[in-house]
């Protein structure tokens, strides 16, 4: 990509122009795809495509561009590559883990329960910090719901369907028109976004523990 054009688009995107970021992604998409495709390999080709990874990478780019610190020509592609590689890694990790499921892990009731909320809280690495855990539980669940509502649509859907309602990844994939690998990838990103939201809401949660 021409360094001058990249610089101009990055500058405009940093000023909050979503069209500029869209153009930037459009121009870098072929290179990004070329970098990601070899990493999928034959083993996962039936469960994951480069487009799955690109879709989530684009969403992350829009969500996180304000944190991107461009250090010159080529930096945008490097940044996107890093996001895409993380997404790929998360998808593969999820697919591998699904092959050896823990019997205690899933409650497949199809309805969110206190346990499933607690499981989600545990999964994102948050802990209750209010003095009375029990008293705060209901309020915390409400707060968790609010935080999920503030996530991008795909993230919110995957968290609700997978973590709270206990549907299988393959079923969620079918309803969303995505691959199974994409669901694991979306879930990892959704957890990360939720973790950040929870970290900011310090009156309910503290991270760690």
């Amino acid at each position, binding site marked *: 990509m021409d360094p001058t054009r990249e610089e101009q688009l990055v500058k405009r995107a940093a000023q909050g122009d979503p069209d500029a*970021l869209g153009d930037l992604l459009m121009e870098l998409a072929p290179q990004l795809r070329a*970098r990601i495709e*070899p*990493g999928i390999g034959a083993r996962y*080709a039936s469960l994951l495509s480069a487009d799955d990874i690109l879709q989530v990478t684009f969403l992350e780019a829009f969500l996180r561009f304000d944190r991107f610190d461009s250090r010159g020509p080529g930096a945008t592609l490097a940044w996107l590559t890093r996001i895409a590689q993380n997404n790929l890694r998360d998808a593969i990790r999820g697919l591998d883990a699904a092959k050896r499921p823990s019997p205690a892990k899933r409650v497949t009731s199809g309805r969110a329960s206190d346990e499933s909320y607690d499981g989600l809280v545990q999964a994102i690495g948050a802990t209750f910090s209010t003095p009375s855990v029990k008293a705060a539980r209901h309020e915390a669940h409400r707060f968790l719901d609010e935080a999920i509502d503030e996530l991008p649509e795909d993230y919110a859907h995957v968290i609700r369907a997978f973590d709270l309602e206990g549907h299988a990844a393959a079923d969620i994939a079918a309803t969303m028109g995505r691959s199974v690998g994409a669901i694991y990838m979306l879930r990892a990103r959704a957890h990360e976004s939720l973790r950040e939201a929870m970290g900011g809401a*310090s009156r309910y949660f503290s991270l760690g523990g």
Partner: protein
Amino acid sequence: MAPNGESSQASTSDRDMIERARVQAKAAAQAQRRGLIGSLANVAASIPGYQVLGEAKRGGQGIVYKALQLSTKRQVAIKVLIDGATSSYAESARFEREVHVLAQLHHPHIVSVHDSGQTSGHFYCVMDYITGESLDDYVERIKPSVHDRLQLFAEVCEAVNAAHLLGVIHRDLKPSNIRVDEAGHPHILDFGLAKTTGDAFAESPSAMTMSGQFLGSLQWASPEQAEGGASRIDTRTDVYSLGVIAYHMLAGRFPYDVSGSMKQILNNIVDLEPTKLRSVDRSINPDVEAIVMKTLAKERERRYQTAGELARDVRRFLAGEAIEARGDSTAYVMRKMLRKHWPVFATAAAFVALVIGFGITMTVLRGVAVKQRQIAEAKTEEALATVDTFVNAIGSVRPEDGGDKDIPLRSALIELKDEAEDRLGDKPMPLARVHDMLGQSFESLAQLEPAEASYERALDLRLKALGEHDRETIKSMNVLAVFYKKNDRLDDAAPLFERVAAALPTLRRGGPRDQRDVAAIRINLARWYEARGDKTGAAASYRAAIEDLEGLNENEDLRARAFASGNLGGFLTSTGAYDEASERLRACVDALTEYRGEGHPETAIAQVKLAHLLVKQDRIGEAEQLYRQAIDVLTTKMGPGHPATLATRSHLYELTIKRDGYAAGRSIIEDMVAQARTTLGESHADTVLYIGKLGMCQAHMGEDDLARPNLELACERLRQIRKDPCHPDCIRFTKELAAVCERMGDAAGAAAQNAVLEQCDDQADSAVRP
């Protein structure tokens, strides 16, 4: 999108995916905002003793609600801070202390704080609720006379001064933080960014938050805020913002362009002189202009020192009295420089007054020695003879001597150039000398464009007046050639060096001055030969230069001989003649230590050359010590981004990775790249070289995704700069890039780089075969 579906790529284009991502991200941002606002409204409603009536104002720090204090039935404003903004211990301590200070600050034009606390993790404070409108809305609606505007402004200044007297600096003064009540009196709000003097918690490293946002309101910020100099923020910072407010009240616009990117605005605040008020509106009284311009001085010491001083001067004007701001004229820059560099300017000031004429009055020259005063009174021809004195004097104001790289010096040089062109336009020789000096001075300040323009102008003047073969013309050519070479513009340098070499034998070598000139040219030619790989020519030129200088014992001759010896030593190091190299280099270091002192950059550079030799001799510990000493001196005297400082750090980096591995050198090279990008610019050869080195470092640390763009950039740019894809640096980076591509599974990318390497191999083969 499903991998085995009907061609995901055909059904879903990149554009569709990007659009989908964009829509989802936008919806999420809106939901977050709604969630935050709802959360803050709940917090406000939960504060006991108040009934929230509605939202009054939203800002970066939080939301202000209009509320009723139930016990007194009076209207108040409750400001609730956004969670996170005050979550750290330091921040919360600062907030509490600030509220405590403001609670004691009773002034009719400052909003009082009645109550404060923390609820549900959010800080809040309860303040007076002021009916009325913001200062800019008020001025826009009422359109008061200049007199009334100044009256209002004086009240604002007095209120700010009351805060200053309690040690509170506002730091975010702007019209929207000043409300004008129905009686037309101002009330200052929002001490949210206020800092108390001596406030340890407020000494954040810069005006930028960790998330990179500017703390405060950009357009009204002072140069020290724009530069991120938190430690330099004091009452005069508020004085500056008051100046912007006054300017805006009077002219209806900002003193400089505040459109464009944040970076551009910050640059304008730091660099651009405010447009004169009277050039916007001729009807404004010159005294008012003087007051406002003094308030907007870039340097804090030139402004009113307190908001009280500013208020008093405004009051003086309103009372028809003489103001204090008058007299800060164009002579200021030179006066300041005279004070700062007095020994240097003692002789130059007289010349400046007489020939260049900066408008310096004899008041400025008070105290100049009798000898200089005589010069000042001399006739024009004699004054012109002092051009050399002046040139030498001002030319010696170099960063390495005084550690001054400040903007006033640069501005003064630009002003001097314009004045010199005007006044010496018909005197090419003195004008050329002035341009020699300007070129050196600009170059010392890393202002390469004006430096080049001055060197070129000097050569042009001499070519026209003296012709190609005059000694002065050849020296001028040599200076410009060296400048090009230093800046890696070898194509520009080559023809000039050739002309210099051709003319050298025709030069007369009578007295010591000729010998010195010829020696200096020889040294530069030798370095040119060295750069071209002509070892024989280089060694011969160095030795001839040393011979030229034999028998000359002026200080400058000793220095020049030390340089020649140092350069020859450096060159001998590269050829493997270590014994003679050691002898020459140690002689050079000793001579410069004696002549310049240990802490001088010239001595430091000689030490660097000696360190290179020590590395070759595998005496790593001694070399490292010398590099570190030199880096300390160069950083202090030349600045961290100076090419010499960076080059020396680069040597230390190479030594570090060789001894301790890439991880140990990582932070050094990262910092160097950032410095080089800032100071030298993205396309400078050194910057590109350091980017390439960073890429190598990342590749060796297994971070191929980070390494690749850096290596790609370095290869592409270096091939352009060196005009040779087979230059050793290019080959080094190309090899690494090929390996990275391969590891990343990009066979085509690797093949393209390997093709370049094969071509270079072929070239090398054909060069050695008969």
